[in-house]
Protein backbone atom coordinates (compact mmCIF):
# COMPACT_ATOMS: atom_id res chain seq x y z
CA UNK A 1 0.00 0.00 0.00
CA UNK A 2 1.13 3.51 -0.77
CA UNK A 3 3.11 5.54 1.74
CA UNK A 4 3.39 9.31 1.87
CA UNK A 5 7.11 9.96 2.38
CA UNK A 6 9.58 12.81 2.12
CA UNK A 7 11.21 12.53 -1.32
CA UNK A 8 14.57 11.63 0.17
CA UNK A 9 13.11 8.55 1.84
CA UNK A 10 10.88 7.62 -1.11
CA UNK A 11 13.92 7.53 -3.41
CA UNK A 12 16.16 5.74 -0.89
CA UNK A 13 13.54 3.02 -0.28
CA UNK A 14 12.73 2.36 -3.92
CA UNK A 15 15.84 2.91 -6.02
CA UNK A 16 19.00 0.82 -5.79
CA UNK A 17 22.35 0.65 -7.56
CA UNK A 18 22.05 -1.39 -10.75
CA UNK A 19 18.27 -0.92 -11.12
CA UNK A 20 16.48 -0.50 -14.41
CA UNK A 21 14.61 2.73 -13.77
CA UNK A 22 12.22 4.90 -15.75
CA UNK A 23 11.75 8.58 -14.92
CA UNK A 24 8.91 9.16 -17.37
CA UNK A 25 7.14 12.23 -18.64
CA UNK A 26 6.52 13.16 -22.26
CA UNK A 27 7.64 16.81 -22.20
CA UNK A 28 4.96 17.42 -19.55
CA UNK A 29 5.21 16.41 -15.85
CA UNK A 30 8.85 15.37 -15.98
CA UNK A 31 9.92 14.11 -12.54
CA UNK A 32 12.90 16.42 -12.18
CA UNK A 33 12.83 16.62 -8.38
CA UNK A 34 12.95 12.82 -8.09
CA UNK A 35 15.83 12.63 -10.57
CA UNK A 36 17.75 15.29 -8.65
CA UNK A 37 17.21 13.38 -5.41
CA UNK A 38 18.58 10.25 -7.12
CA UNK A 39 21.61 12.28 -8.22
CA UNK A 40 22.18 13.53 -4.66
CA UNK A 41 22.05 9.96 -3.37
CA UNK A 42 24.66 9.01 -5.96
CA UNK A 43 23.27 5.76 -7.42
CA UNK A 44 25.53 3.89 -9.85
CA UNK A 45 25.21 1.51 -12.77
CA UNK A 46 21.60 2.39 -13.53
CA UNK A 47 19.82 1.37 -16.71
CA UNK A 48 17.90 4.53 -17.55
CA UNK A 49 14.72 3.97 -19.54
CA UNK A 50 12.79 6.80 -21.11
CA UNK A 51 11.21 7.69 -24.45
CA UNK A 52 12.58 11.24 -24.37
CA UNK A 53 15.63 11.36 -22.10
CA UNK A 54 15.90 15.10 -21.84
CA UNK A 55 17.65 17.27 -19.27
CA UNK A 56 17.38 14.89 -16.31
CA UNK A 57 19.03 12.00 -18.12
CA UNK A 58 21.62 14.37 -19.56
CA UNK A 59 22.35 15.27 -15.93
CA UNK A 60 22.41 11.69 -14.66
CA UNK A 61 24.59 10.55 -17.57
CA UNK A 62 26.89 13.54 -17.03
CA UNK A 63 27.23 12.55 -13.36
CA UNK A 64 28.29 9.05 -14.39
CA UNK A 65 25.26 7.22 -12.97
CA UNK A 66 24.17 5.35 -16.10
CA UNK A 67 25.62 2.14 -17.50
CA UNK A 68 22.93 1.90 -20.18
CA UNK A 69 20.14 4.01 -21.66
CA UNK A 70 17.05 2.71 -23.44
CA UNK A 71 15.41 5.54 -25.38
CA UNK A 72 13.71 6.75 -28.53
CA UNK A 73 14.72 10.44 -28.71
CA UNK A 74 17.90 11.63 -27.02
CA UNK A 75 17.39 15.36 -27.59
CA UNK A 76 16.59 18.60 -25.81
CA UNK A 77 13.01 18.99 -27.10
CA UNK A 78 12.76 21.90 -29.51
CA UNK A 79 16.33 23.01 -28.78
CA UNK A 80 18.64 20.37 -30.18
CA UNK A 81 21.15 17.91 -28.83
CA UNK A 82 21.85 16.58 -25.35
CA UNK A 83 25.47 17.46 -24.86
CA UNK A 84 26.32 15.33 -21.81
CA UNK A 85 24.70 12.29 -23.43
CA UNK A 86 26.64 13.03 -26.60
CA UNK A 87 29.90 13.26 -24.67
CA UNK A 88 29.21 9.84 -23.16
CA UNK A 89 28.23 8.21 -26.46
CA UNK A 90 30.89 9.88 -28.62
CA UNK A 91 33.80 10.07 -26.15
CA UNK A 92 32.97 7.73 -23.28
CA UNK A 93 32.98 10.66 -20.84
CA UNK A 94 32.61 10.45 -17.86
CA UNK A 95 32.09 6.76 -18.64
CA UNK A 96 31.07 4.80 -21.69
CA UNK A 97 27.42 3.82 -21.80
CA UNK A 98 25.54 1.12 -23.63
CA UNK A 99 22.62 2.31 -25.75
CA UNK A 100 19.44 0.54 -26.80
CA UNK A 101 17.59 2.74 -29.24
CA UNK A 102 13.99 2.45 -30.39
CA UNK A 103 11.37 4.59 -32.10
CA UNK A 104 8.62 6.25 -30.06
CA UNK A 105 6.15 3.70 -31.39
CA UNK A 106 8.49 0.90 -30.28
CA UNK A 107 8.92 2.29 -26.74
CA UNK A 108 5.22 3.14 -26.34
CA UNK A 109 4.20 -0.35 -27.40
CA UNK A 110 6.87 -1.90 -25.15
CA UNK A 111 5.62 0.01 -22.08
CA UNK A 112 2.06 -0.96 -22.89
CA UNK A 113 3.12 -4.60 -23.16
CA UNK A 114 4.84 -4.27 -19.79
CA UNK A 115 1.68 -2.86 -18.25
CA UNK A 116 -0.35 -5.61 -19.89
CA UNK A 117 1.87 -8.37 -18.53
CA UNK A 118 2.95 -9.52 -21.99
CA UNK A 119 6.51 -10.62 -22.81
CA UNK A 120 6.67 -8.52 -25.96
CA UNK A 121 4.87 -5.93 -28.06
CA UNK A 122 3.77 -6.50 -31.65
CA UNK A 123 3.14 -3.61 -34.01
CA UNK A 124 3.63 -2.35 -37.56
CA UNK A 125 6.92 -0.56 -37.30
CA UNK A 126 10.59 -0.13 -38.18
CA UNK A 127 9.87 -0.87 -41.86
CA UNK A 128 12.99 0.11 -43.78
CA UNK A 129 14.43 1.73 -40.63
CA UNK A 130 18.13 1.41 -39.83
CA UNK A 131 17.44 0.83 -36.13
CA UNK A 132 16.24 -2.67 -36.88
CA UNK A 133 19.76 -3.62 -37.99
CA UNK A 134 21.65 -2.06 -35.04
CA UNK A 135 19.33 -3.04 -32.18
CA UNK A 136 19.11 -6.83 -31.66
CA UNK A 137 15.98 -6.30 -29.53
CA UNK A 138 14.05 -5.25 -32.63
CA UNK A 139 12.80 -8.46 -34.21
CA UNK A 140 9.77 -9.61 -36.15
CA UNK A 141 6.86 -12.01 -35.91
CA UNK A 142 4.54 -13.23 -38.62
CA UNK A 143 0.83 -12.75 -38.05
CA UNK A 144 -0.69 -16.27 -37.87
CA UNK A 145 -3.88 -15.03 -39.51
CA UNK A 146 -2.72 -12.81 -42.37
CA UNK A 147 0.95 -13.63 -42.81
CA UNK A 148 1.93 -9.98 -42.34
CA UNK A 149 5.41 -9.55 -40.90
CA UNK A 150 5.22 -7.26 -37.87
CA UNK A 151 7.82 -5.74 -35.56
CA UNK A 152 8.33 -7.20 -32.10
CA UNK A 153 10.18 -5.66 -29.16
CA UNK A 154 10.53 -6.94 -25.59
CA UNK A 155 8.18 -5.50 -22.98
CA UNK A 156 9.62 -2.81 -20.72
CA UNK A 157 9.50 -3.87 -17.06
CA UNK A 158 11.38 -1.32 -14.94
CA UNK A 159 12.41 -2.18 -11.40
CA UNK A 160 11.00 1.19 -10.49
CA UNK A 161 9.25 4.03 -12.30
CA UNK A 162 9.14 7.65 -11.16
CA UNK A 163 6.49 10.06 -12.41
CA UNK A 164 5.27 13.52 -11.44
CA UNK A 165 1.51 14.16 -11.25
CA UNK A 166 -0.82 17.02 -10.45
CA UNK A 167 -2.36 15.73 -7.27
CA UNK A 168 -3.08 12.90 -4.90
CA UNK A 169 -6.05 12.53 -2.61
CA UNK A 170 -5.57 11.70 1.08
CA UNK A 171 -5.86 7.99 0.33
CA UNK A 172 -2.99 8.20 -2.13
CA UNK A 173 -4.88 7.88 -5.39
CA UNK A 174 -3.10 9.94 -8.07
CA UNK A 175 -4.50 12.14 -10.84
CA UNK A 176 -2.60 12.80 -14.08
CA UNK A 177 -4.14 15.16 -16.63
CA UNK A 178 -3.17 17.16 -19.70
CA UNK A 179 -0.56 15.49 -21.88
CA UNK A 180 -0.64 12.15 -20.07
CA UNK A 181 2.18 10.68 -22.14
CA UNK A 182 3.25 7.24 -21.05
CA UNK A 183 2.97 7.70 -17.27
CA UNK A 184 0.16 5.25 -16.60
CA UNK A 185 1.92 2.54 -18.58
CA UNK A 186 5.27 3.31 -16.91
CA UNK A 187 3.70 2.88 -13.46
CA UNK A 188 1.77 -0.28 -14.29
CA UNK A 189 4.76 -1.86 -16.07
CA UNK A 190 7.09 -1.35 -13.10
CA UNK A 191 7.66 -3.45 -9.99
CA UNK A 192 7.59 -0.29 -7.86
CA UNK A 193 6.34 3.22 -8.58
CA UNK A 194 7.10 6.53 -6.90
CA UNK A 195 5.00 9.59 -7.63
CA UNK A 196 5.77 13.20 -6.80
CA UNK A 197 2.71 15.48 -6.76
CA UNK A 198 2.03 19.20 -6.74
CA UNK A 199 -0.46 18.89 -3.88
CA UNK A 200 -2.70 16.62 -1.83
CA UNK A 201 -6.44 17.24 -1.83
CA UNK A 202 -9.11 15.82 0.47
CA UNK A 203 -11.01 13.82 -2.11
CA UNK A 204 -11.35 13.00 -5.81
CA UNK A 205 -15.13 12.55 -5.48
CA UNK A 206 -16.00 15.44 -7.79
CA UNK A 207 -13.65 14.48 -10.65
CA UNK A 208 -14.84 13.51 -14.11
CA UNK A 209 -15.22 9.70 -14.10
CA UNK A 210 -12.88 9.10 -17.03
CA UNK A 211 -9.83 11.00 -15.88
CA UNK A 212 -6.51 9.21 -15.58
CA UNK A 213 -6.39 8.15 -11.96
CA UNK A 214 -3.87 5.65 -10.67
CA UNK A 215 -5.38 3.80 -7.69
CA UNK A 216 -3.28 3.97 -4.51
CA UNK A 217 -2.53 0.23 -4.57
CA UNK A 218 -0.56 0.67 -7.84
CA UNK A 219 1.91 3.06 -6.17
CA UNK A 220 4.67 2.45 -3.62
CA UNK A 221 5.30 5.98 -2.40
CA UNK A 222 4.05 9.53 -2.89
CA UNK A 223 6.04 12.67 -2.12
CA UNK A 224 4.59 16.16 -2.21
CA UNK A 225 6.98 18.38 -4.17
CA UNK A 226 5.40 21.58 -5.52
CA UNK A 227 7.20 22.64 -8.68
CA UNK A 228 8.78 19.17 -8.85
CA UNK A 229 8.70 18.95 -12.63
CA UNK A 230 10.48 22.26 -13.35
CA UNK A 231 11.72 23.18 -15.98
CA UNK A 232 8.99 21.01 -17.49
CA UNK A 233 5.47 22.00 -16.51
CA UNK A 234 2.40 20.86 -14.64
CA UNK A 235 -0.80 21.53 -16.57
CA UNK A 236 -3.03 23.76 -14.44
CA UNK A 237 -0.16 24.79 -12.13
CA UNK A 238 2.71 26.36 -14.05
CA UNK A 239 3.96 26.67 -17.63
CA UNK A 240 7.02 25.18 -19.28
CA UNK A 241 10.22 27.12 -18.61
CA UNK A 242 11.31 27.21 -22.25
CA UNK A 243 14.10 29.66 -21.40
CA UNK A 244 15.64 27.08 -19.05
CA UNK A 245 15.70 24.50 -21.85
CA UNK A 246 17.47 26.99 -24.09
CA UNK A 247 19.94 27.84 -21.29
CA UNK A 248 20.65 24.13 -20.66
CA UNK A 249 22.12 23.88 -24.14
CA UNK A 250 24.90 26.24 -23.05
CA UNK A 251 25.40 24.81 -19.57
CA UNK A 252 25.75 21.25 -20.82
CA UNK A 253 28.09 22.22 -23.65
CA UNK A 254 31.00 22.59 -21.23
CA UNK A 255 32.12 19.88 -18.77
CA UNK A 256 33.22 22.33 -16.06
CA UNK A 257 30.23 24.60 -16.36
CA UNK A 258 28.01 21.52 -16.14
CA UNK A 259 29.72 20.36 -12.92
CA UNK A 260 29.42 23.81 -11.37
CA UNK A 261 25.75 24.02 -12.26
CA UNK A 262 25.06 20.57 -10.85
CA UNK A 263 26.88 21.44 -7.63
CA UNK A 264 24.91 24.64 -7.10
CA UNK A 265 21.48 23.55 -8.33
CA UNK A 266 21.32 19.86 -7.47
CA UNK A 267 23.96 18.67 -4.99
CA UNK A 268 23.61 21.67 -2.67
CA UNK A 269 19.84 21.97 -3.16
CA UNK A 270 16.85 20.04 -1.84
CA UNK A 271 13.42 19.10 -3.10
CA UNK A 272 12.06 22.11 -1.22
CA UNK A 273 13.83 24.44 -3.65
CA UNK A 274 11.54 23.54 -6.54
CA UNK A 275 8.56 25.63 -5.44
CA UNK A 276 10.52 28.86 -5.82
CA UNK A 277 11.74 27.85 -9.28
CA UNK A 278 8.21 27.87 -10.71
CA UNK A 279 6.93 30.98 -8.92
CA UNK A 280 7.36 33.14 -12.03
CA UNK A 281 5.75 30.45 -14.20
CA UNK A 282 2.49 30.12 -12.32
CA UNK A 283 -0.39 31.48 -14.34
CA UNK A 284 -2.61 34.20 -12.94
CA UNK A 285 -5.70 32.45 -11.61
Amino acid at each position, binding site marked *: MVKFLPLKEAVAENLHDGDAVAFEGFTHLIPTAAAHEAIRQGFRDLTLIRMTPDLIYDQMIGMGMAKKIIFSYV*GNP*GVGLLRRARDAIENGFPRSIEIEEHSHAGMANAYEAGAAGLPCAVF*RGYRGAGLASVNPNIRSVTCPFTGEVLAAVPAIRPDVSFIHAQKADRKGNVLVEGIIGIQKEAVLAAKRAVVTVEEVVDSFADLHPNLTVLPNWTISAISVVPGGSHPSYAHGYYVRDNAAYLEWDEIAADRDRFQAWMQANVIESTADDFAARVEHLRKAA
Partner: protein
Amino acid sequence: MSDLGFTPNEMMTIAASRALKNDDVCFVGIGAPSAACNVARLTHAPDITLIYESGTIGTAPDVLPLSIGDGELCETAVTTVAVPEMFRYWLQGGRISIGFLGAAQLDKFGNINTTVIGDYAHPKTRLPGGGGAPEIATSSREIYITMAQTKRGMVEKIDFFTSFGHGDGGDHRQRLGIDTAGPTLLITDLAIWKPDPVTREFTVVSLHPGVSREEVQATCGWVVKFAEALDETPAPSELELKTLRDLQARTKAAHEGTAKEKAA
Protein backbone atom coordinates in the same frame (compact mmCIF):
# COMPACT_ATOMS: atom_id res chain seq x y z
CA MET B 1 16.03 40.16 -46.35
CA SER B 2 16.39 40.20 -50.11
CA ASP B 3 14.96 43.02 -52.20
CA LEU B 4 12.08 40.66 -52.95
CA GLY B 5 10.58 41.62 -49.59
CA PHE B 6 10.76 38.16 -48.02
CA THR B 7 13.49 35.76 -46.94
CA PRO B 8 14.16 32.31 -48.44
CA ASN B 9 13.05 30.76 -45.15
CA GLU B 10 9.78 32.66 -45.23
CA MET B 11 9.22 31.49 -48.79
CA MET B 12 9.92 27.91 -47.70
CA THR B 13 7.46 28.00 -44.82
CA ILE B 14 4.74 29.63 -46.91
CA ALA B 15 5.23 27.29 -49.88
CA ALA B 16 5.02 24.38 -47.46
CA SER B 17 1.86 25.76 -45.87
CA ARG B 18 0.16 25.96 -49.27
CA ALA B 19 0.59 22.22 -49.80
CA LEU B 20 -1.76 21.46 -46.90
CA LYS B 21 -5.50 21.19 -47.43
CA ASN B 22 -8.38 22.07 -45.15
CA ASP B 23 -9.40 18.41 -44.76
CA ASP B 24 -5.90 17.08 -44.08
CA VAL B 25 -5.06 15.24 -40.88
CA CYS B 26 -1.43 16.20 -40.42
CA PHE B 27 1.11 14.67 -38.05
CA VAL B 28 3.36 17.63 -37.35
CA GLY B 29 7.11 17.44 -36.88
CA ILE B 30 8.70 20.13 -34.72
CA GLY B 31 10.57 23.08 -36.24
CA ALA B 32 9.94 24.15 -39.83
CA PRO B 33 6.98 21.76 -40.35
CA SER B 34 5.24 23.18 -37.28
CA ALA B 35 5.46 26.74 -38.60
CA ALA B 36 4.16 25.72 -42.04
CA CYS B 37 1.25 23.72 -40.60
CA ASN B 38 0.13 26.58 -38.40
CA VAL B 39 0.40 29.15 -41.19
CA ALA B 40 -1.86 26.86 -43.24
CA ARG B 41 -4.33 26.72 -40.35
CA LEU B 42 -4.27 30.50 -39.95
CA THR B 43 -4.77 31.18 -43.68
CA HIS B 44 -6.42 28.84 -46.18
CA ALA B 45 -6.96 25.70 -44.07
CA PRO B 46 -8.77 26.76 -40.87
CA ASP B 47 -10.23 23.30 -40.26
CA ILE B 48 -7.03 21.30 -40.78
CA THR B 49 -6.42 18.73 -38.03
CA LEU B 50 -2.94 19.18 -36.59
CA ILE B 51 -1.61 16.32 -34.48
CA TYR B 52 1.59 16.40 -32.41
CA GLU B 53 3.12 13.19 -31.13
CA SER B 54 2.52 14.16 -27.51
CA GLY B 55 -1.07 13.03 -28.12
CA THR B 56 -2.70 16.37 -28.91
CA ILE B 57 -5.30 15.97 -31.67
CA GLY B 58 -6.79 18.96 -33.48
CA THR B 59 -4.60 21.53 -31.78
CA ALA B 60 -4.66 25.27 -32.57
CA PRO B 61 -1.79 26.97 -30.73
CA ASP B 62 -1.57 30.76 -30.70
CA VAL B 63 2.24 30.54 -30.60
CA LEU B 64 4.50 27.87 -32.05
CA PRO B 65 5.43 25.27 -29.44
CA LEU B 66 9.11 24.93 -28.59
CA SER B 67 8.62 21.21 -27.97
CA ILE B 68 6.05 18.71 -29.22
CA GLY B 69 4.48 18.77 -25.77
CA ASP B 70 4.05 22.42 -24.81
CA GLY B 71 0.96 23.05 -22.68
CA GLU B 72 -0.79 25.21 -25.25
CA LEU B 73 -1.04 22.25 -27.62
CA CYS B 74 -3.13 20.40 -25.06
CA GLU B 75 -5.14 23.45 -24.00
CA THR B 76 -6.27 24.14 -27.59
CA ALA B 77 -6.70 20.54 -28.75
CA VAL B 78 -9.99 18.78 -29.48
CA THR B 79 -8.69 15.93 -27.35
CA THR B 80 -5.44 14.68 -25.89
CA VAL B 81 -4.68 10.96 -25.84
CA ALA B 82 -1.93 8.87 -24.29
CA VAL B 83 1.22 8.31 -26.31
CA PRO B 84 0.60 4.57 -26.98
CA GLU B 85 -2.88 5.42 -28.27
CA MET B 86 -1.38 8.15 -30.47
CA PHE B 87 0.96 5.73 -32.18
CA ARG B 88 -1.35 2.69 -32.25
CA TYR B 89 -4.83 3.96 -33.06
CA TRP B 90 -4.17 7.22 -34.85
CA LEU B 91 -0.88 6.71 -36.71
CA GLN B 92 -0.67 2.93 -37.17
CA GLY B 93 -4.46 2.89 -37.65
CA GLY B 94 -4.03 4.80 -40.92
CA ARG B 95 -5.82 7.99 -39.86
CA ILE B 96 -3.01 10.42 -40.81
CA SER B 97 -3.14 11.86 -44.34
CA ILE B 98 0.12 13.83 -44.19
CA GLY B 99 3.20 13.25 -42.08
CA PHE B 100 5.23 16.46 -42.16
CA LEU B 101 8.91 15.97 -41.33
CA GLY B 102 12.12 17.95 -41.19
CA ALA B 103 15.52 16.38 -41.75
CA ALA B 104 19.12 16.76 -40.64
CA GLN B 105 20.31 14.71 -43.63
CA LEU B 106 18.26 13.85 -46.68
CA ASP B 107 19.04 11.92 -49.85
CA LYS B 108 17.49 12.24 -53.30
CA PHE B 109 15.00 9.43 -52.58
CA GLY B 110 13.58 11.13 -49.50
CA ASN B 111 15.31 8.91 -46.96
CA ILE B 112 15.99 10.85 -43.76
CA ASN B 113 18.77 10.66 -41.17
CA THR B 114 18.35 12.33 -37.79
CA THR B 115 20.30 9.68 -35.84
CA VAL B 116 24.08 9.94 -36.30
CA ILE B 117 26.72 11.55 -38.44
CA GLY B 118 29.35 8.89 -39.02
CA ASP B 119 29.25 5.28 -37.88
CA TYR B 120 26.35 4.27 -35.60
CA ALA B 121 28.50 2.52 -32.99
CA HIS B 122 31.19 5.23 -33.00
CA PRO B 123 29.44 8.37 -34.19
CA LYS B 124 31.16 11.60 -35.10
CA THR B 125 28.02 13.41 -34.00
CA ARG B 126 25.22 11.78 -32.06
CA LEU B 127 21.94 13.42 -33.15
CA PRO B 128 18.68 13.05 -31.18
CA GLY B 129 17.40 10.10 -33.21
CA GLY B 130 14.09 9.26 -34.79
CA GLY B 131 11.47 9.80 -32.10
CA GLY B 132 8.19 9.22 -33.90
CA ALA B 133 9.60 9.57 -37.41
CA PRO B 134 10.33 5.93 -38.40
CA GLU B 135 6.63 5.04 -38.14
CA ILE B 136 5.32 8.44 -39.28
CA ALA B 137 7.33 7.88 -42.49
CA THR B 138 5.65 4.55 -43.23
CA SER B 139 2.17 4.80 -41.66
CA SER B 140 1.11 8.27 -42.87
CA ARG B 141 -0.57 8.12 -46.27
CA GLU B 142 1.91 10.67 -47.67
CA ILE B 143 5.04 12.43 -46.42
CA TYR B 144 5.98 16.04 -46.95
CA ILE B 145 9.52 17.11 -46.08
CA THR B 146 10.77 20.63 -45.53
CA MET B 147 14.35 21.79 -44.93
CA ALA B 148 16.73 24.58 -45.89
CA GLN B 149 19.23 23.50 -48.54
CA THR B 150 22.86 22.87 -47.64
CA LYS B 151 25.44 20.49 -49.07
CA ARG B 152 25.83 18.96 -45.61
CA GLY B 153 22.09 18.38 -45.34
CA MET B 154 21.24 17.19 -48.85
CA VAL B 155 23.67 14.39 -49.53
CA GLU B 156 24.23 11.62 -52.04
CA LYS B 157 24.31 9.00 -49.28
CA ILE B 158 22.90 9.43 -45.78
CA ASP B 159 24.81 7.97 -42.82
CA PHE B 160 21.80 6.23 -41.25
CA PHE B 161 18.27 5.33 -42.40
CA THR B 162 16.28 6.87 -39.55
CA SER B 163 13.12 7.12 -41.66
CA PHE B 164 12.58 5.22 -44.87
CA GLY B 165 11.59 7.25 -47.92
CA HIS B 166 11.84 5.55 -51.29
CA GLY B 167 14.95 3.55 -50.31
CA ASP B 168 17.00 2.94 -53.43
CA GLY B 169 14.17 4.36 -55.54
CA GLY B 170 11.65 2.74 -57.87
CA ASP B 171 9.36 0.25 -56.13
CA HIS B 172 11.55 -0.25 -53.05
CA ARG B 173 8.69 0.61 -50.68
CA GLN B 174 6.36 -1.95 -52.24
CA ARG B 175 9.11 -4.58 -52.08
CA LEU B 176 9.26 -4.04 -48.32
CA GLY B 177 5.49 -4.37 -48.04
CA ILE B 178 4.96 -0.67 -47.30
CA ASP B 179 1.67 0.34 -48.88
CA THR B 180 1.77 4.10 -48.20
CA ALA B 181 2.99 6.67 -50.74
CA GLY B 182 6.05 7.92 -48.83
CA PRO B 183 7.65 11.28 -49.64
CA THR B 184 5.58 13.05 -52.30
CA LEU B 185 6.80 16.60 -51.76
CA LEU B 186 9.98 18.37 -50.69
CA ILE B 187 9.90 22.09 -50.00
CA THR B 188 13.24 23.83 -49.51
CA ASP B 189 14.15 27.47 -49.17
CA LEU B 190 14.92 27.54 -52.89
CA ALA B 191 12.53 25.22 -54.66
CA ILE B 192 9.66 22.75 -54.68
CA TRP B 193 10.59 19.17 -55.52
CA LYS B 194 8.48 16.11 -56.39
CA PRO B 195 9.57 12.51 -56.89
CA ASP B 196 9.95 11.24 -60.44
CA PRO B 197 6.98 8.90 -61.09
CA VAL B 198 9.27 5.99 -62.01
CA THR B 199 12.65 6.43 -60.32
CA ARG B 200 11.22 8.31 -57.29
CA GLU B 201 14.18 10.67 -57.33
CA PHE B 202 13.26 14.15 -56.13
CA THR B 203 13.07 16.51 -59.10
CA VAL B 204 12.77 20.29 -58.98
CA VAL B 205 9.35 21.29 -60.32
CA SER B 206 9.26 24.93 -59.20
CA LEU B 207 11.89 27.54 -58.40
CA HIS B 208 11.10 30.18 -55.80
CA PRO B 209 11.12 33.80 -57.11
CA GLY B 210 14.61 35.04 -57.94
CA VAL B 211 16.25 31.61 -57.52
CA SER B 212 18.43 30.15 -60.30
CA ARG B 213 19.09 26.51 -61.17
CA GLU B 214 22.74 27.11 -60.30
CA GLU B 215 21.86 28.18 -56.76
CA VAL B 216 19.79 25.05 -56.24
CA GLN B 217 22.67 22.89 -57.46
CA ALA B 218 25.29 24.78 -55.43
CA THR B 219 23.50 23.95 -52.16
CA CYS B 220 22.67 20.32 -52.91
CA GLY B 221 25.04 17.37 -52.60
CA TRP B 222 23.64 15.32 -55.46
CA VAL B 223 23.30 16.14 -59.18
CA VAL B 224 19.95 17.92 -59.34
CA LYS B 225 17.32 16.94 -61.90
CA PHE B 226 14.96 19.66 -63.10
CA ALA B 227 11.52 19.10 -64.61
CA GLU B 228 11.15 20.02 -68.27
CA ALA B 229 8.38 22.47 -67.50
CA LEU B 230 9.79 24.39 -64.56
CA ASP B 231 7.35 26.65 -62.68
CA GLU B 232 8.06 29.70 -60.56
CA THR B 233 6.61 29.47 -57.07
CA PRO B 234 4.18 32.34 -56.51
CA ALA B 235 5.66 34.91 -54.11
CA PRO B 236 4.14 35.07 -50.63
CA SER B 237 1.00 37.15 -50.42
CA GLU B 238 0.75 39.99 -47.93
CA LEU B 239 -1.62 37.91 -45.81
CA GLU B 240 0.72 34.91 -45.80
CA LEU B 241 3.73 36.98 -44.83
CA LYS B 242 1.87 38.90 -42.12
CA THR B 243 0.45 35.66 -40.71
CA LEU B 244 3.88 34.04 -40.53
CA ARG B 245 5.65 37.08 -39.10
CA ASP B 246 2.97 37.69 -36.48
CA LEU B 247 3.13 34.04 -35.47
CA GLN B 248 6.91 34.17 -35.13
CA ALA B 249 6.79 37.42 -33.17
CA ARG B 250 4.22 35.98 -30.74
CA THR B 251 6.34 32.85 -30.43
CA LYS B 252 9.53 34.75 -29.69
CA ALA B 253 7.83 36.89 -27.06
CA ALA B 254 6.24 33.86 -25.41
CA HIS B 255 9.42 31.77 -25.24
CA GLU B 256 11.50 34.62 -23.89
CA GLY B 257 8.72 35.59 -21.51
CA THR B 258 9.44 32.73 -19.14
CA ALA B 259 13.04 33.80 -18.60
CA LYS B 260 13.80 34.96 -15.09
CA GLU B 261 14.97 38.50 -14.49
CA LYS B 262 18.07 37.21 -12.75
CA ALA B 263 20.05 34.08 -13.41
CA ALA B 264 18.84 31.01 -11.52
